[in-house]
């Protein structure tokens, strides 16, 4: 069928089953927006900033497991979106981001709103395309979706010049893809899998090290089966929260810089690391030479480049975690769970010695209390997003996660301003769950314009601002490592968050007692409109435990013991 490039974009999105597009129009993408206007197959959600459009698409993708789609214009529209692309690239989020470009005849002339978009996105996308002829569009869009969702998922950027969206050409989306140079390895080598299972059967202190790849691969329930069938304890990375339920006896907790004592000690004492979809990030490993020093490593990952990148793997298995774990389960009878009983006891002792906790305060609200309280009140009924900073770590530490895709955060890039738009995307994907965004008084201002989107499109995200009048995480580092020189981190001068929310038609609550918090949360859930709950929390609370940057996991700064009042 003959049609314009702009119509092809719409037809391709429909063929891909896209239900939501997050975007912001502008000159170079106008032909496509004209076609969006004429269709009602998918909903377009107009964000108020291109960065938020991409984060919202990320939230949508992370919560639903589908490919998120974002649409933006050339020049500043595109450059605003770059942070979102980089964020999605670091956290392996499947996205297709379509940008307009100046017409082909103007490319290279420093035209109005021209920037070398594919040049910029090359280093922060899985792949990118500059479309130079409308006849290539069906193939390119089909490849873009395929590449985004297969293998190690990631963002794919498609840059389309304005004249290409006007050009008429043949559209046939049923063409078979033949990407000779892209063939992800999804099935693990059976011999390696067998060897790995034998190593597990012979280990004394094995440990599952679960990463975000488990969630990306939709393998959490298979992993739960494997953990339970073997009786081997597990630690989760920040990105893997929710893989095991918080109350699972074999879940030790989160490891890494702000991981629990028991999780970090288990990693230091284990003799066999079973890494599933984890990439040995520096925030997880601490000092590499001391990381799991006496352990052999089984490393299952879809990305060969992640294996033996930082830590040498003794049993490298390239494949989709779900496929590999399914194969491992078939061999699980060779593993005798009782063998690990002494090891489980050792870990229990670690947990008793320094449990993950905080000091309650009767007068001030502790930020950790807020997280726990939301967990008590909403638990499984909420999806949790966060921004970046102390509140993010407290959310990861203290929220009782019960399922995969419940926790949506910016891990690799650490993008302040991620949480609110991402939570809108989460709400769009999973409307039946309450969408909570834990945020800070620093982060929330980096995309607070999205109040307008949330009001307009009825995306009732509840933003809980753990307000300590500080850029808290940086303040914590300054306190600990810069001799309390709190350079430019005092955020005492701040807006009235209640009025800010209300100015956009949302609702605001100011909270300084626990009773007020309970009432505010209950009211916000009931009223079902976008909300800011501004919670005054203890100013100088630190995230503990903490492995100082570059330190060894077993050398944690721990919560100071406190005499009972």
């Amino acid at each position, binding site marked *: 069928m003959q049609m314009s490039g702009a119509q092809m974009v719409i037809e391709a999105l429909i063929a891909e089953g896209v239900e939501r597009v997050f975007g912001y129009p502008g000159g170079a993408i106008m032909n496509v927006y004209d076609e969006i206007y004429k269709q009602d197959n998918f909903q377009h959600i107009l964000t108020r900033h291109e960065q938020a459009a991409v984060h919202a698409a990320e939230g949508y993708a992370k919560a639903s497991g589908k490919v998120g789609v974002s649409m933006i214009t050339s020049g500043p529209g595109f450059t605003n979106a770059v942070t979102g692309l980089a964020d999605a690239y670091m956290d392996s989020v499947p996205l297709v981001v379509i940008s307009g470009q100046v017409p082909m005849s103007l490319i290279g002339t420093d035209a109005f709103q021209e920037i070398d978009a*594919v*040049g910029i996105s*090359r*280093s922060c996308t*899985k*792949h990118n395309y*500059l479309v*130079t002829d409308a006849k290539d569009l069906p193939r390119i869009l089909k490849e873009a979706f395929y*590449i985004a969702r297969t293998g190690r998922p990631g963002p794919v950027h498609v840059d389309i010049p304005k004249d290409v969206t006007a050009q008429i050409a043949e559209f046939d989306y049923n063409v078979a893809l033949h*990407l*000779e*140079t*892209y063939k992800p390895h999804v099935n693990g080598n059976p011999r390696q899998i067998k060897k790995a299972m034998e190593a597990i059967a012979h280990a004394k202190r094995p440990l599952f090290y679960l990463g975000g790849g488990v969630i990306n691969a939709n393998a959490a329930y298979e992993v739960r089966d494997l953990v339970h069938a073997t009786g081997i304890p597990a630690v989760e990375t920040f990105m893997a929260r929710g893989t095991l339920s918080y109350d699972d006896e074999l879940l030790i907790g989160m490891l890494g810089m702000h991981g629990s004592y028991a999780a970090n000690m288990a990693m230091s004492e284990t003799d066999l690391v079973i890494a599933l979809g984890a990439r040995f990030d520096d925030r997880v490993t601490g000092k590499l030479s001391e990381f799991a020093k006496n352990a052999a490593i089984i490393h299952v990952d879809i*990305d*060969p*480049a992640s294996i*033996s*990148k930082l830590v*040498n793997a003794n049993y490298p298995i390239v494949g989709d975690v779900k496929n590999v774990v399914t194969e491992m389960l078939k061999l699980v009878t060779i593993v005798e769970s009782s063998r690990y009983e002494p090891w489980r006891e050792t870990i229990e002792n670690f947990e008793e010695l320094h449990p993950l906790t905080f000091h309650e305060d009767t007068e001030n609200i502790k930020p950790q209390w807020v997280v726990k309280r939301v967990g008590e009140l909403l638990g499984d009924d909420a999806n949790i997003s966060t921004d970046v900073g102390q509140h993010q770590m407290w959310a990861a530490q203290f929220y009782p996660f019960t399922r995969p895709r419940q926790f949506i955060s910016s891990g690799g890039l650490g993008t302040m301003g991620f949480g609110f738009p991402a939570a809108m995307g989460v709400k769009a994907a999973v409307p039946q769950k309450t969408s909570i965004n834990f945020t800070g008084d620093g982060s929330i201002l980096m995309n607070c314009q999205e109040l307008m989107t949330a009001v307009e499109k009825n995306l009732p995200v509840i933003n809980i601002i753990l307000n300590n009048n500080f850029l808290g995480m940086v303040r914590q580092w300054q306190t600990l490592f810069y001799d309390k020189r709190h350079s430019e981190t005092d955020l005492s001068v701040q807006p009235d968050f209640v009025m800010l929310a209300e100015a956009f038609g949302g609702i605001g609550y100011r909270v300084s007692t626990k009773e007020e918090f309970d009432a505010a949360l209950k009211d916000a859930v009931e009223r079902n409109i976008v909300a800011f709950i501004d919670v005054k929390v203890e100013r100088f609370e630190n995230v503990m435990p903490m492995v100082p940057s570059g330190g060894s996991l077993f050398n944690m700064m721990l919560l100071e013991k406190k005499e009972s009042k």
Partner: protein
Amino acid sequence: MNDNNERRVVSVIVVNEASVLSRITDLFSGRGYNITSLTVAPIPDSKYSRLTIVTSGSVRVIEQITKQLHKLIPVLRVYEHADLVEKEMALVKFPITENISDISAICDAYNGKIVNVGNEVVITMVADEPKRVDHYLEAIKKYNPKEIVRSGAVALER
């Protein structure tokens, strides 16, 4: 694990398409890998090009380089050569006043010859292993070369 910075030759077969070379060089600069030399030309009668990259790094870095190259969508194959035939070409321009027969004799020794004689200059070409090209360029220093250009290495597995 060997942490010495060893010289390695990596060949990459890529789809001939816009910006594929930038993808390769961006990967090297973005991840802090070295490029000593890089040559690229289309493979006859195919839609592919072959790049020959001379790089250096520890065993782990070289392994990462090959894996990261593989991850790029338009990359078909990556060869990290162990046993290879490697050649490089050098063109050198000399003043015509230099001792041409000496220069010609040296070229002979390095698999080369005089390829152009003008009114004021002669141009020589040698093609040999990169190490031997180094030696050649050392040997001709006293004949006051005016300009030197090296092609970068190309290689084939034995």
